[in-house]
């Protein structure tokens, strides 16, 4: 596997412009003859499909949902960062770049992050032009807030529904192209494999979720915008259908998978309430702007929160990090909550929770002001828990939320398979080992609107070949492979439900490859996962047929891939003998319990190559160089 | 132009037709009720008023012309109202091809559910009312030109008065939802307008239905004789 990052030469601020100039263009008259497949219709997929169609390419967009608008980008709450400096508080492209590299704990590619910061401003312009109703000041100008510990106000937001509004903007742009016939939309079709011809990505195989039909689709290039894989943990804040299948299938066809162990645990989620729990609900990080996090000073203090006096409370983040307090980055906030609960200070019936208290903010600003800022979140909390957060503190606990790892891509967002491009959360590129709040929407849209549509032109101009006939042996072979795998799944008639296997995998991953990892734990998981995978194929059961809507079959196919991915995550976590960002190895910490990076040994992206079912994956390394932001120990004291 | 006309055949176009024709009727029933209040001033005034309707607009219009013009407008409005209602009902029936076992009533007011059967009932009533007090075909003691007499003798029958009472109840409901609905359909909406839409609808419904109901009550109690 050759890892050529294709980072343009020259000063960082000019790399993207220079690169845009150097890329080959496709003759406008020829664009409609070139066909691009976009898999996924979230922020990245929808914006890419719409923009490619505007440019004149023939686009087919696939989603396993009934509508592109259901993609999980819709659930992002807090906001989107942009270096607009509308607040005049000293923000700049360079500062956003700097913050993002530092926040990612120096495990991302500088050139990509700089480009992301540059494009952030264009995204806001584009979104406003599309009718995204961002929050505004009384004068009619856009409002900003400070988010996730940033020292400047650079976050644009639409109430607590920023992801929804940005996705609707991209969705509307996409539907315009669908209406005009420039994009063929294929809902309720799930990608099951990638078609390679002469080593290039030339199409995909899908299963129609309603009719069960397995079909092949060919094109000049394939784009995956298929999201993250947090559902490997079973319980996560991801939507129930989020899965790794498209990316994993591509990986098995030769695409390198980078930093799979870089997962983000979000600190402010509603704690688990029981065995039946199907997913976890995130409460926007913005709550930490006004809420104070605490636990009882005495372990096992069973009193109701309001009966615990200030003296008996430990506002531990404020105590440990006097300058950032409750606004420390996500990984720190999550890990400290875990420590508190591990040490017996946890609250709630399970003991896995800490308080997020608004009493002081309500006293200072009044209940009305708090209602205006967080009303919908408070309402959601009350609906789920039956507790009123205006009257008593919320209980929160960290939950898997986002995956920084993903398919490796070069500066052009192309994977190690020529022609296969990967955008949004599905790729690995910009967030390093930890993503900052309000940066996911930014990256998805930068990729989809402003990067991929141009870089893919360069690939097409250089490589577009003859159309592939539907009966081409590589196409037919791939279709056969999917058919036989589906048949194998349908034939499973054991004693365990698919759900029970997924739950077990999730617990294994959470315990051993979650917020804190140890070599021993990871080895335990690496021993157990292959046997669990065997149990799945031998003892799980898929009821129903293949010719209709069959949600058990859908889940089974996804869980089968999680069972393989989980192993790779543990392997990656074990190989990375350091702590950085969301990856915390207990063996590697400072005396104060902070993550201890090993820049000499691990300043690289680990890119795993698939070598077959019975052989271990091979690790390749893309070294990371830091010319502009000197790696330093993060300190939020 | 072709496309423009087609735009009035959509469900929204038909609803606009219903609203506009409905407003004609709202005007009519209000005028009709106020005019009939003259019955409390005695036979002479009332008959003079009834006759006056025919001379309205004189000398510009000839005897009876304005009345017929008014009648023509009402007939056109009625036809448009009923035709639109039929088309809209058919569309809506087709839109729920499979019915629920149960669907909770979630609408703002029960009056909205009365529009279809209430409308049919009102149509039947209008026919009866015309045959009864305008043409006298179903009136036991009809004297052409003596509206006062026809009204008093007509309402002295308890069953006839009961029919009128039920019809006025239906009219009240129809007006209550119809007036509010017309504001919605014509897009007359805004924070200030919205505050007065319900009270106005209720007011018109109460005044018209109440005023009309007073006539049979007055006859049966002997206040008007």
């Amino acid at each position, binding site marked *: 596997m050759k890892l050529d990052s294709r980072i343009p030469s020259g000063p960082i601020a000019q790399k993207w412009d220079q690169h845009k100039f150097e890329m080959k263009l496709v003759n406008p008259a020829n664009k409609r003859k070139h066909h691009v497949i976009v898999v996924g219709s979230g922020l990245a997929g929808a914006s890419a499909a719409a923009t490619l169609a505007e440019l004149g390419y023939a686009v087919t967009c696939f989603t396993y949902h009934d509508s592109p608008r259901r993609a999980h980008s819709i659930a992002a709450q807090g906001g989107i960062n942009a270096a607009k400096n509308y607040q005049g508080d000293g923000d700049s492209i360079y500062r956003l770049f700097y913050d993002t590299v530092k926040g990612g704990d120096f495990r991302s590619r500088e050139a990509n992050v700089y480009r992301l910061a540059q494009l952030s401003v264009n995204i806001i312009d*584009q979104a406003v032009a599309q*009718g995204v*109703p961002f929050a505004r000041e009384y004068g009619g100008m856009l409002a900003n807030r400070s988010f996730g510990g940033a020292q400047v106000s650079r976050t644009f937001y639409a*109430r607590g529904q920023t992801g929804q509004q940005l996705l609707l903007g991209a969705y509307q742009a996409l539907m*315009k192209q669908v209406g005009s016939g420039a994009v063929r939309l294929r809902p309720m079709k799930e990608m099951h494999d990638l078609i390679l011809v002469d080593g290039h990505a030339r199409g995909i195989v899908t299963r129609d979720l309603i009719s069960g039909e397995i079909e092949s689709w060919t094109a000049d290039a394939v784009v995956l915008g298929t999201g993250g894989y947090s559902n490997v943990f079973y319980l996560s804040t991801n939507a129930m259908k989020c899965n790794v299948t498209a990316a994993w299938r591509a990986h098995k066809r030769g695409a390198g998978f980078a930093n799979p162990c870089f997962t983000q645990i979000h600190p402010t989620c509603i704690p688990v309430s029981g065995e039946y729990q199907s997913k976890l609900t995130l409460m926007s990080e913005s709550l930490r702007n006004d809420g104070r996090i605490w636990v009882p000073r005495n372990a096992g203090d069973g009193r109701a929160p309001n009966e615990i006096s200030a003296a008996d409370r430990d506002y531990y983040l404020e105590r440990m990090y006097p300058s950032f307090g409750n606004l420390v980055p996500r990984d720190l906030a999550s890990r400290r909550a875990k420590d508190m609960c591990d040490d017996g200070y946890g609250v709630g019936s399970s003991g896995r929770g800490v308080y997020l208290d608004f009493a002081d903010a309500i006293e200072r600003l009044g209940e009305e002001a708090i209602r205006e800022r967080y009303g919908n979140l408070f309402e959601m909390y009350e609906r789920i828990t039956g507790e009123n957060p205006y009257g008593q503190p919320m209980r929160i606990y960290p939950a898997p939320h986002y995956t920084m790892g993903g398919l490796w891509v070069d500066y052009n967002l192309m994977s190690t398979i020529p022609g296969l491009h990967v955008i949004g959360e599905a790729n690995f590129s910009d967030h390093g080992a930890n993503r900052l709040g309000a940066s996911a929407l930014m990256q998805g849209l930068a990729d989809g609107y402003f990067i991929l549509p141009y870089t893919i032109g360069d690939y097409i101009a250089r490589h577009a070949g003859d159309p592939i006939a539907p009966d081409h042996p590589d196409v037919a072979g791939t279709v056969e492979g999917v058919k036989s795998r589906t048949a194998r799944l349908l034939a499973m008639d054991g004693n365990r439900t698919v*759900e029970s296997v997924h739950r077990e995998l999730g617990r294994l991953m959470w315990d051993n490859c979650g917020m804190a990892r140890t070599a021993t734990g990871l080895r335990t998981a690496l021993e157990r996962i292959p046997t669990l995978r065997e149990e799945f194929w031998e003892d799980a059961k898929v009821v129903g047929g293949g010719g209709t809507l069959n*949600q058990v079959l859908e889940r089974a196919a996804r869980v089968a891939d999680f069972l393989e991915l989980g192993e790779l995550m543990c392997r990656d976590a074990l190989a990375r003998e350091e702590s950085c960002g969301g990856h915390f190895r207990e063996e590697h910490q400072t005396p104060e319990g902070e993550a201890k990076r090993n820049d000499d040994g691990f300043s690289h992206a680990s890119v795993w190559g698939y070598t077959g079912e019975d052989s271990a994956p091979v690790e390749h390394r893309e070294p990371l160089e830091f010319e502009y932001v000197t790696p330093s120990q993060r300190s939020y004291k | 132009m072709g496309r423009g006309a087609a735009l009035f055949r959509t469900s929204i176009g038909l609803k606009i037709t219903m609203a506009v024709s409905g407003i004609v009727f709202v005007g009519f029933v209000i005028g009709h009720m106020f005019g009939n209040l003259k019955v409390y001033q005695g036979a002479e005034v009332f008959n003079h008023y009834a006759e006056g309707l025919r001379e309205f607009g004189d000398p510009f219009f000839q005897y009876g012309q304005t009345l017929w013009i008014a009648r023509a407008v009402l007939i056109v409005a009625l036809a448009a109202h009923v035709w639109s209602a039929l088309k809209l009902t058919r569309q*809506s029936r087709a839109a729920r091809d499979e019915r629920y*076992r149960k669907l909770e009533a979630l609408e703002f007011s029960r009056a*909205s559910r009365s529009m279809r059967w209430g409308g049919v009932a009102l149509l039947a009533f209008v026919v009866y009312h015309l045959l009864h007090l305008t043409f006298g075909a179903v009136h036991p003691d009809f004297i052409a030109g003596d509206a006062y007499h026809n009204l008093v003798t007509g309402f002295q029958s308890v069953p006839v008065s009961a029919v009128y009472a039920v019809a006025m109840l239906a009219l009240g409901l129809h007006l209550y939802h119809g007036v509010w609905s017309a504001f919605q359909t014509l897009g007359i909406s805004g924070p200030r307008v919205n505050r007065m839409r319900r009270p106005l609808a209720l007011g018109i419904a109460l005044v018209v239905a109440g005023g009309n109901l007073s006539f049979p009550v007055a006859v049966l109690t002997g206040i008007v004789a």
Partner: protein
Amino acid sequence: MNLTLHVWRQASPDDRGRFVTYEALDVEAHMSFLEMLDVVNEGLEERGEEPIAFDHDCREGICGTCGMVVNGRPHGPWKRTTVCQLHMREYRDGDDIWIEPWRAAGFPVIRDLVVDRTSLDRIVAAGGFISARTGSAPDANAIPVPKAHAERAMDAASCIGCGACVAACPNASAMLFTSAKVAHLNLLPQGRPEKAMRVIDMVLQMEAENFGSCTNHGACETACPKDISVDFIALLNRDYLSAAVGRSG
């Protein structure tokens, strides 16, 4: 608690469909409604029976994927709440719960409680967008938008496209959905240039999708999990009327 469920089962669009009764045992008050169904389904799977197909995804009330009529009410009894956020503490031991799919000609049943709502996408494709070519936008602050307008547009834009408005409407009308999208875009200065075309194209597509007519019942607003107001329907009507008059004149 133990509950008796009566669930609409329909193997395919052509199947007649029927209610099937299931016992949901040991349901906990903390469960969400869909988690209760998950447990029932896992029991069915264990016995080798096909589980109840129902659509759902984010389970936090924003994706608009879930939707079913619970005891005659779209999304169940809680106001401003999608069925995925409904929790079982609402119910008491021994309760009967009837569960039906959205029923509308515009939403054909695919299987059990899953319906096809692509009609709503086609309405959006007809005009529910602002044409702004990527990269062509002026600076985001170039056009100030009064806060009140932005807020009102946001109220309309909160629609999650779940289809509860259609399900609740005695006429199976899609006016609340369509009006929310029209209002969101027409209320913003960026949406002005395409205002008339948008409203007409979207309404014509809505008509073509077999939805019923709006009789201003207001059931849609009551059922809407996002509290979208029927005031937007008035706005749609106004924009439609002026566009239609403009066209015919």
